[in-house]
């Protein structure tokens, strides 16, 4: 049974704390982590932040369908995914993913699958907060 943990939150993603909570059985040899960070430009324009919105009930269900698919395809022991929503300033983390598997090939494949599919089916949207929208200090 693959364990899964899904967090959709407006809090800052505390990656060291997430890493500290990692549990791997003695059969596992690989953990792949992905951290997605808000960049300072969106479609060529400078931004201050991205504002993320989720249709959370459906997002949770669609993530669960992806977890089921991962469990079918690869011998993954654990998947953890944290998506931050609300306003996320440039240089802060919007997405954190971890996949634990016996070997690195499976862990990399499952992690990339999860992110690719998330971007296709999980109802989360983002809106740029452009630089000129705020008063400069």
């Amino acid at each position, binding site marked *: 049974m693959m364990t899964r943990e899904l967090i959709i939150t407006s809090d800052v993603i505390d990656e060291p704390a997430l890493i500290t909570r990692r549990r791997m059985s003695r059969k596992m040899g690989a953990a792949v982590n992905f951290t*997605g960070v808000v960049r300072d430009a969106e479609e060529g324009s400078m931004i201050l932040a991205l504002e*993320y*919105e*989720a*249709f959370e*009930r*459906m*997002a949770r*269900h*669609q993530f669960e369908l992806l977890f089921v698919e991962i469990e079918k395809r690869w011998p993954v022991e654990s998947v953890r995914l944290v*998506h931050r929503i609300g306003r996320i300033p440039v240089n802060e983390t*919007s*997405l954190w993913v971890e996949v634990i598997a016996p070997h690195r090939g499976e862990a990399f494949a499952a992690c990339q699958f999860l*992110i690719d599919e*998330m*971007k*296709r*089916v*999980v*109802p*989360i*949207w*983002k*809106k740029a907060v452009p630089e000129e929208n705020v008063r400069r200090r």
Partner: protein
Amino acid sequence: MIVTVLFHSYFKELTGTASVPEALPTGSTLGELHDRLMARFPKLVAMKNSTLLAVGLEYQPRSQMLREGDEVSLFPPVQGG
């Protein structure tokens, strides 16, 4: 029959609302609901081909038959990550 329609992301701006009830003939499909909504909210027409349609928590094709009380979501392409 009556279904509840939810708009997400900038579809809320295009329609001016997050949720509306819509009355439909019994046996209507998701595609027929989408057509009615485009007539009622013309700004949705430009998004027609990229609009994603869900009933409850599942994506469904336009041919999906609707039932009384269904909760239908319309939204633009997703962009998580």
